[in-house]
Structure formats: structure tokens, C-alpha cells
């Protein structure tokens, strides 16, 4: 295969040019995408691309260079540039590459799209929405088939090859009735095949069914301390922010993560178990080795409220003397709870059913102020009406400590699996 030969040659050139340690990651990708604009199928796009990332370490100095040009001249130039960059870098003993592991070849999913079926499924989805939810406007949508072949080699003998393809679907929509329009909402999913109608995947059916009700949205007056039930779509952002902000290299190397000394300690309510499972066959977006070239494993990040793993890279682990993560995060699964989502809502005295949030990211302490979008007021256990111009303020760490319930239902998005989750002690403020 072309990409294997190119990666092998690149590694040899890096060694020849003086790298004491080196790694090469080469990939070829193909995308076939149908694009919807203002409710109409508008574009069919096919892209082909390559990528070659060379990383060189000499005398504890590291540099890297990537390009999508793979001719002979480009390969020499790529290696030479990585070496020059490495020589320019200050030394750091934390720079390293993955240790030797047994070579492996991973294959998953389809190798080619079914274009006719893609068109059929997308058209059926648009027809379904037009028929069942006539006030919903599909602003934009994309159905794509993405295929990638990637090889990872390093001078310790690591040799991993992964080949895979899956479908991805994303949609942005709102509802409109005369001059009244709702906030736009969006959701998406990943699938190994198109065996079912698109509406059956992820939270699409739920999200679209709820959209027209939002036409009746009203502002809220005043502010109060309340409870929120996060829908799975909202939890996507909350989980991603928690992991990116507190568990990855930048905040742990900087020493600003409030969780830096909390490994194996309680950081969340016992109800919460958060896993990262890139190998799970329940998901459609698997990966098999990390960006450092370690064979990926499934992991528990939080186990019944206890922090069990950071998401540190090899460099981050060496820098902080903390354990390296066994994967690169993502592919998140929150284990289901014991109550129904209806029971979670019934348990709320006064608060919000939060579908989506907007407004920046939490600061280094975890403090946030978000606007609750596509969301609903809950009073005395009942959903009253959709709200607009409402903010939720709180602290991300407290959100997890104050969890009061997790639903037994989950939504499988194909890239994550999340339930509904209730937490308390947020400031909810309106006009």
C-alpha cells in the first residue's frame, strides 16, 4: 500500500538525517458528502487528502512538520524540516516516543460509500421533517461517508495500521411560524452503515419533535437558585469541557487544574461513572492507537465519583510525573442510572430542562455563565414552557459534585453515549 511505503521511507530519511528518535504518522482520507442548504440538497462533495506528520527528537530536542505532499522531494523536505525544528528547540528530557509494541493491523467499517443510499436516506429525512414537523426549517445538514487509512511507525519498532469508514450526519434547524422563530438547535450522529432511516439515530427524533413547542418561548423574570436536568445533547458539551479543561496536558502541566492532586479521590457524586471507550463496538467512531503511538485501551475516567485517570499524553505524563492516559479521550460513555428521565424532571421543584448551552467556556476555576438554549422551565415537576434569554451560572466541578440523579435511558450518538442528568445549586437568571 502506498501509505505504508511512504511512512517507511519517511522514517528511514529521519534516521538518516540524524534523528535519535522519530515517529511518522501517514494517512490518506476520503470524504463523500451531501450538503443541505436552506432545506434543499445542494451539493455533492468528494475530497481526497493525504497527511504526513514527521516528529524528530535529537539530543532531547523535538520538532515536527506535517504536509499533504508525498512526492520524493516533499518527503526529503519534510524530514529535513522536522530535524531543523528539533535542533532549534531547547532540550527537554520529557520528549519521548512510545515503547515497542507488537505490530497490528486494524480494520473496521465500510471501505466505500453507498451514494445512492445516502441520497435516499437524506431525501427521506427531509421529507419526514416536512411532513411530520411542517414548522421546522432545516437550515443546514450534512451526510457524509468518511474513510481513513493511517499508519504509525516509530524508531522503537511501533507499527500500527488502521483502516476504517463510517457515516456522519449533522443537522442545524429551528422552527418558524409567521414572524416568530426559535433558537437554532443542532445535533448529530455517527453510524457504521445506513441500515435505518436517519431519524432513528441519536437524538434526532426527540430534538425535532420538541422544536415546534419552542415557538411559545417566553423570557423569565428575576433570578433564583435552581436545579437543572441536562439532556444528552447538553451533556456532550459539559463532559467535553470538563475533560478538556481539567484533565489534559495544558492545565496539568501549567498546574492550574483544580484536579491536579485529585487522582483516586472523589470529584463527583457516586452516581457518575464516565468512561472513554475507543474500542467499544457500540460506537461508530473507534480509534485503535493514540497520537503517541500506544495501542489504545478503554478506560474509566471517573468511577462512581472517583477520578481514576487524567488524559495526559506521553509528554504530559513525563512532565507531571502522573500516569499517561491509555487513550486520547473522546468516545465518552456515561453509565446509565436507575431512574427514568421523566422521574428526573418530576423531582425538580424549580429549574430548567436544558437542551443546549451557549456562551464561551468555563474559566480555569470552572466558573461558567451560559445561555440556556432550546430549554424549558420546570416547576413542581412539570415542564411549563420554553424559555428565552435565560442564563445559568455555576461551577463545572460543582455540577458533577451535586448530581442528584442519572437516567437509565441513554442516547447513543455514535461518537458518545449519554443519559439525562440532574444537578442542583445553579443560579438561573432572566431579564
Amino acid at each position: 500500500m502506498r501509505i505504508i511505503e511512504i511512512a517507511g521511507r519517511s522514517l528511514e530519511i529521519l534516521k538518516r538525517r540524524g534523528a535519535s528518535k522519530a515517529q511518522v504518522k501517514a494517512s490518506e482520507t476520503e470524504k463523500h458528502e451531501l450538503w443541505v442548504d436552506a432545506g434543499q440538497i445542494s451539493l455533492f462533495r468528494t475530497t481526497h487528502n493525504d497527511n504526513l506528520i514527521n516528529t524528530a527528537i535529537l539530543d532531547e530536542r523535538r520538532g515536527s512538520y506535517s504536509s499533504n505532499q508525498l512526492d520524493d522531494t516533499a518527503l526529503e523536505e519534510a524530514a529535513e524540516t522536522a530535524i531543523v525544528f528539533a535542533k532549534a528547540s531547547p532540550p527537554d528530557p520529557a520528549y519521548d516516543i512510545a515503547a515497542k509494541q507488537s505490530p497490528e493491523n486494524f480494520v473496521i467499517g465500510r471501505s466505500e460509500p453507498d451514494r445512492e443510499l445516502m441520497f435516499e436516506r437524506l431525501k427521506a429525512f427531509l421529507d419526514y421533517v416536512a411532513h411530520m414537523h411542517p414548522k421546522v426549517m432545516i437550515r443546514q445538514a450534512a451526510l457524509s461517508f468518511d474513510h481513513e487509512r493511517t499508519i504509525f511507525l516509530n524508531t522503537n519498532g511501533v507499527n500500527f495500521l488502521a483502516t476504517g469508514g463510517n457515516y456522519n450526519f449533522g443537522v442545524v434547524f429551528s422552527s418558524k411560524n409567521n414572524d416568530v422563530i426559535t433558537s437554532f438547535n443542532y445535533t448529530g450522529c455517527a453510524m457504521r452503515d445506513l441500515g435505518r432511516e436517519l431519524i432513528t439515530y441519536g437524538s434526532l427524533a426527540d430534538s425535532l419533535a420538541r422544536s415546534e413547542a419552542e415557538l411559545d418561548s417566553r423570557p423569565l423574570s428575576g433570578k433564583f437558585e435552581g436545579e437543572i436536568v441536562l439532556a444528552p445533547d447538553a451533556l456532550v458539551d459539559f463532559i467535553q469541557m470538563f475533560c478538556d479543561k481539567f484533565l489534559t496536558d495544558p492545565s496539568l502541566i501549567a498546574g492550574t487544574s483544580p484536579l491536579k492532586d485529585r487522582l483516586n479521590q472523589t470529584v463527583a457524586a457516586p452516581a457518575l461513572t464516565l468512561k472513554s471507550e475507543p474500542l467499544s463496538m457500540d460506537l461508530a467512531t473507534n480509534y485503535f492507537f493514540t497520537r503517541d503511538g500506544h495501542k489504545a485501551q478503554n478506560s474509566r475516567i471517573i468511577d462512581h465519583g472517583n477520578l481514576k485517570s487524567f488524559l495526559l499524553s506521553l509528554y504530559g505524563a513525563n512532565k507531571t510525573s502522573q500516569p499517561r492516559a491509555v487513550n486520547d479521550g473522546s468516545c465518552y460513555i456515561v453509565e446509565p442510572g436507575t431512574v427514568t428521565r421523566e422521574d428526573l424532571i418530576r423531582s425538580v421543584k424549580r429549574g430548567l430542562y436544558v437542551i443546549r448551552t451557549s456562551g464561551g467556556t468555563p474559566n480555569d476555576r470552572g466558573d461558567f455563565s451560559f445561555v440556556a438554549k432550546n430549554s424549558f422551565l420546570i416547576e413542581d415537576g412539570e415542564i411549563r414552557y420554553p424559555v428565552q434569554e435565560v442564563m445559568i451560572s455555576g461551577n463545572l466541578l460543582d455540577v458533577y459534585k451535586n448530581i442528584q440523579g442519572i437516567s437509565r435511558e441513554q442516547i447513543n450518538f455514535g461518537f458518545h453515549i449519554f443519559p439525562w442528568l440532574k444537578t442542583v445549586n445553579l443560579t438561573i437568571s432572566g431579564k
Partner: protein
Amino acid sequence: MIEKNLARYRHLFHDYTELRAQEMRYQVIAFLNGNLVANHLDVNSGISARVYQAGSWGFASHPGRDDSAIKTVVTEAGHNAGFLARKLRKKLPPLPVSAAHAEKNLSTHKQRLSQKELIQFNKELEHYIGQNYKNLVSRRVIIQNIDREISLLTSLGAESYTFIPRSKIYISLSAEKDGAPVEVYDVTGGLGHFEDLFRTPADLHPFIDNLYNKLLDKREGERPESGVVDCILDSRVAGILAHEAVGHTTEADLVLGGSVAANNLQKPVASPLVTLVDFAHTALGKTCPEPVYVDDEGTPPEDVVIIEQGILKQYMHNRESAMLFETAPTGNARAWTFSDEPLIRMRNTAILPGKDKLADMIASIQDGYYLCATGNGQADATGEFTFAVTQGYRIHNGKLGKAILDTTITGIAFEMLKTVTMVSDEMHWTVGGLCGKKQLMTVGMGGPSLKCRVMIGGK
């Protein structure tokens, strides 16, 4: 480098066709607490074609740059357009015809710095911070350079070549207060290569000192009281307001999707003090941060006066939306990389300066906030905008008081803009703006300081 002139491939075109060669060079050098955590250059180049057939689009791209790759993308784009055209059979008028010609290369004429020299520059800044401000928990210094080089040929006769570089230095400082971190950051730089924007590390010492003083203020800060408040949005914040609150809702594809701007053309949507323009390449006699001399459909770009003295006047268009709205395209079609299709994107969106003085504006507020720096933001079809505020101060009796901690502000754009009662005489362009809308895009955002009412999050 890409091929500057694609004219010899014109014979490959049958239907409406755009052929685009594009290269993006992305370079990053990042120090975190004295550790070099990023030392990387990425070069991504290739060729793409987009074809329009009977109301449907086909697109194809390839990383190759030779004749074979070019023939492949034109053929594949044609097949893709044909696939959709046969299925959809749209009956639409033809696309508007226009063809721009331009050649603009904004590269430096100076000797380029080596990677070693750039790392040394960064390291000296990093060292200055470490030596002078020892009570910091963390410090981050990032050099980021983005070069976008584009050649375009269209079947309508447009031909262009542009090279637009951008360079910025991002600095963030964190200190501790009661065991919790407090962070401030700022960015400097803009249009041009590094060598044209930055001379010596010492030139940036006042920038760093100023940022450190803001950190000291913020370390003693408190969370704002949530609710609707009077505030002064500093000129460094006005740009993101223009972009998020108004700009997105007036992109014609979002108008077609039902944005709030759809029913408000020629109606008052803001105070008469507000005029908001999406500039192509020149504003108030100066080159904008993201100059567009030809858009990625080959359209000659026009300035779009979106709001004029409070009245909503125009939308931003590509060829297809212009056809649907029966107007002229405005040159807003832009694609991020060679493998992306052009979408309607903003270019340099700004509120025009007024006549008031910032000091008078602050003095006019009894109880409110002065909001000085922002993080990312988001727009909505309803006109509800949100964006993060990372630096600000309380105002009480017309005077600046304590700093505030991070917060978010929001409002409904066409209501909030009607509350504008003062507009300063300054003009500030934000450095390094990046917009996300299916694809990333470098954008310019700017404006003066504004006095208005917004909803603020907090305790």
C-alpha cells in the same frame, strides 16, 4: 508555492466551473511555563473544482498539483453535479455573471526568520515574564502564523492570485487567589508576516506589563451580579458584537434558513447612532485585517452596508443567494482550505466610530460595567447573541471600581442595539479572529466603544 496562473486549464470547463489552487501554512511555537510544548509547521495544499449544473453543485478536491490532479477534480466535480442534477431537476435561473481580476501578494520583503530565531524570540518573551513576575502560576506565550495562498480561475473569466499572511502573539498569565487560578490573556499582531509586525521582544514588554496589571486587578475581582445592566462595551469588544449579534443573521444563507433578519430589511433594527459594515479590504482609508480582493467564486468584492444609521439595509451574498434574492453578489464567498467549498462568510465586520469620548461614556454610567476583553461567542437565528467576557470592571457613580471575574453577556441583537446611546470616536480591530461555520475562517472584527444595555451572567 502553488501555481499562480491557472488559465491553461480553461479548456477543461464545460458548465459553470471554479478551479482553485490553495495552500495554507500554519506555524505554531508555544511555551508553557518555560516548556516548549509546540514547535510545528503544517502545510496543506491542493486543488479543487466546483461545478454548477441545473441548480445543483458538485465539488471535488485532491492534494496533487499536476495536470492529472486538475483533470481529476474537474471531472469528478462534474460527475457529482450531474448526479444531483439528475435526481433533483431544479428549475432555477442562471447564476449572476461577473468576473474579478486581482493579484495581491502581502508577503514580507524582509529576510524570513528561521525557526530557531522565532523560538528564541518567543523564549525571550517567556523569560521576561518569568524574571519579572514571579508570583504567576502559569504563563503561556504562543506565536501563531497563518499564510493563505489562493489561485482562482472561473468559467466566467475571473482570474486571481492572492497571498495573505497573518501573524499573532498570544500571551496568557495566571495567578492564584484563595487557591484558585485567575487568568488574563491578550493577543497582538494582525495582517502581515511576523517580520513586518514584530521587531524585537523588548517592544512587547509594555504589552506584557499592561497585561500583568490587568491580572492583578482581576485577581481581586468578583463575580458580577446577573441581570440586565448598563454597560460600556470597549472597542475591543465591539467587533465580536458586530460579528455575532448582527453579522451571522445577515448572511444570506442564514436569512434563507429563517434568521431574524429575514423580515427586517429596510426596518429600524438599531439606534440611529449605529452603522455596521462588512468591508471587503479597506475601511476608513486603511487595509482591513482580512482583505478580500476577489472572493472564492471570482466575484469582485463590495463593501456591504448591513445597518445604516439604525436601518437594516443589506445582506451578504454569494452567487446562488444573489440569484435567489434577485440582487448582485457581494463577494462574500470564501473557503477555508483547498478541500472546502466556498460558503457565505464575513470578511471585516465593524461598527463605525461615532463622536463620543470613552471617558465621558464611563462617567455617564451610575451603576454598571465596563467590559474590555472577550473570548469566543455564538450567534443564533433569533438574533440572540452570546459571548464570553474575560476582562471588565464595575462602574459606580461614573467611576471604575473593582474588576470582575469571567462572565458571559447576551441579548437579542436588534433590541440591544436600540439601547445604544453613545458611540466613541475610536476604531479598534480585533487581532486573530477565527469564525466557525462548517469550516473555520479568518475574519476581521472591529468597532468603537458603545454604551448600551445587555444581560450579564453572574451571581
